[in-house]
């Protein structure tokens, strides 16, 4: 077989294949439910109900989507330049550490706005620095960033474990590995009083718009795309490729770290080893399902969060393991990358 690019793919083709990918994912979900001995329609219904069936469920989904917006944006920004940042998990924890450090220091006496700004800014700064290392190794020595960013995730988790048993241990934690909690006054307020949704979600949407503007309206955005499309052509055209990669990394690492800031300051209030159940890795799925479009990331983060929240609630009611969500998201990712290709090329024999 051979692939032939289609010069002007029809709208039906461009929408049909991605839609088919999502449809097939639903089919797989039904099959997985059948294997577990459950009724597929009831299972899908329970997932939907658990994700958006009530005000509480919907808010839970939006809360879960918040860190995914940040990690999804981090991945989308980096992958656009073909910079393979698989280390959003480490950057997230870096941001979370700094948020707790600032939020439990004397600075916590500051008024809400400057304090939150300071925490968010220092979190983003640390996240950017964490990714700067692997990127400099890539530009200077040609070390593949996939492996270094991945290994940094493991190093960072061990470092957090050390902090929680050592310097940042909560004296009132009763042996539970968690940090001291931020005071209520030092935390991100809720958007609407009484509704369990904090300003982190709004910040995520603001960041998505900011990234969208950077990508479509600035020189840097143009350069990032050029580097991602063809690094040699970009270099030939006089684009400072290494500088662009470093800037991309700072942006990506900073965004991922904001997930840590938002989770600590907005939701959990303290640092623990289960702060992120793999938000960094799920961010890759979020970004790919959004076709790396920053505004699409918001939509896909809510969708992915809904599947996870819904599956959690479904598995409590039916005997279908909650890992069905992880499987579905991985399958959706693989179907989607294939669908995007097929919407642009034709498969011919020979």
């Amino acid at each position: 077989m051979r692939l032939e690019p289609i010069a002007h793919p029809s709208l039906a083709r461009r929408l049909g294949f991605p839609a088919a990918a999502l449809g097939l994912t639903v089919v797989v979900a039904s099959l997985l439910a059948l294997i577990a001995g459950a009724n597929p329609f009831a299972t899908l219904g329970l997932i939907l109900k658990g994700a958006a069936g009530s005000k509480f469920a919907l808010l839970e989904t939006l809360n879960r989507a918040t860190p995914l917006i940040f990690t999804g944006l981090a991945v989308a920004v980096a992958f656009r330049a073909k910079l393979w940042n698989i280390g959003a998990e480490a950057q997230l924890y870096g941001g979370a550490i700094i948020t707790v450090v600032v939020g439990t220091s004397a600075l916590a006496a500051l008024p809400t706005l400057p304090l939150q700004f300071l925490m968010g800014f220092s979190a983003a700064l640390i996240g950017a620095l964490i990714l700067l290392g692997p990127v400099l190794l890539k530009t200077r020595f040609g070390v593949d960033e996939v492996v270094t960013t991945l290994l940094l995730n493991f190093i960072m988790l061990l470092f957090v474990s050390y902090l929680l048993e050592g310097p940042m241990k909560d004296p009132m934690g009763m042996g539970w590995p968690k940090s001291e909690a931020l005071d209520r006054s030092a935390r991100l307020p809720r958007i609407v009083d009484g509704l369990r949704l904090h300003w982190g979600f709004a910040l995520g949407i603001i960041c998505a718009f900011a990234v969208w503007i950077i990508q479509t309206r600035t020189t840097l955005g143009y350069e990032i795309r050029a580097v991602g499309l063809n690094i040699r052509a970009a270099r030939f055209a006089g684009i400072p490729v290494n500088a662009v990669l470093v800037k991309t990394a700072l942006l990506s690492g900073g965004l991922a770290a904001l997930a840590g800031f938002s989770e600590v300051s907005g939701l959990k209030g303290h640092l623990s080893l289960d702060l992120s159940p793999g938000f960094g890795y799920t961010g890759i799925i979020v970004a790919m399902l959004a076709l790396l479009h920053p505004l699409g990331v918001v939509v896909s983060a809510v969708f992915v969060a809904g599947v996870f929240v819904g599956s959690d609630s479904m598995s409590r009611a039916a005997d279908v393991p909650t890992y069905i969500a992880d499987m579905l998201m991985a399958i959706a990712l693989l179907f989607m990358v294939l669908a995007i290709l097929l919407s642009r090329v034709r498969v011919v024999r020979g």
Partner: protein
Amino acid sequence: MMEVLDILLSASFWAAAVRIASPLIFATMGEIICERAGVLNLGIEGIMVIGAFAGWMAVYQGAPLWSGVAVAMLAGMLFGLLHATLTVPFGLSQHVVGLGVTLLATSTSYYAYRLILPEVSSPPKIEPFQPFEIPILADIPIIGEALFAQTPLTYAAFGLAALVAFALYRTPLGLALRSVGENPAAAEAQGLSVTGLRMGAVIVGSGFMAVGGSFLTLSAFSSFFFEMVNGRGWICIALVVFGMWQPGKAVLGALLYAAFDAFQIRLQQLPIGNVVPYQFFLMMPYILSIAALIAMSRRAEVPAALMVPFNRGDR
């Protein structure tokens, strides 16, 4: 200082190093086969998980140990087929597909585990491979215990490395494989099927990765638990680079890494272990891997067509 020397001279230390290296050798050989044919396989981490799970589950359900290894290999090949289909004929991003395969294989293992064993608090055990002492050789001091009193899968790992080295450099198939990884267009002109060779390499290589995973449940430990692969797959990706895509050097790298890992575990028992928190010892192997990548980066001879999809008729 004397205590460090004691560690390095003890047979149990070297035996542990060889044991820790075994799963890494299987998986690294698998990755070398893939990458030599021009395909980066980031599915390795998840494929090791599915191998660890499938092999263990087969034995837990009553299959003999070697059948467990075969089941693991088949499971790995299945995910290898998925990876190969998406990355070779369709030429999709090897990074994205690889990570997707890792996520899918990992979650499939966890889903199936929970489905079959819904309510277990402590993971059930199986009877794993026992050490097999090779007569006479096992009696050599230190080396005997380290090399010749291991479980059969360890011998298989070293056997596989020798086989891969021989096949890559001394057989027509190995030449064909290397040529599709270096210059697919030229290989195609020679009448070789680039698609076929690459897909075959990814499928077989993934099978070996899964066997590496099954070493963990069938030889090193006796049960399957979540997070047990714990980044070993990513370490193997680093080992391939460190070994400059050559099986022999990669085995040396795996042994070096494993010795270091065994060493840090023992170092924790010494007085220094009371001063330095244990997390820093556990970090050392990962840091070492990054350091090794930096050290080798200048000399790396990457297969020229690694990560370059081949579409017949493209110019």
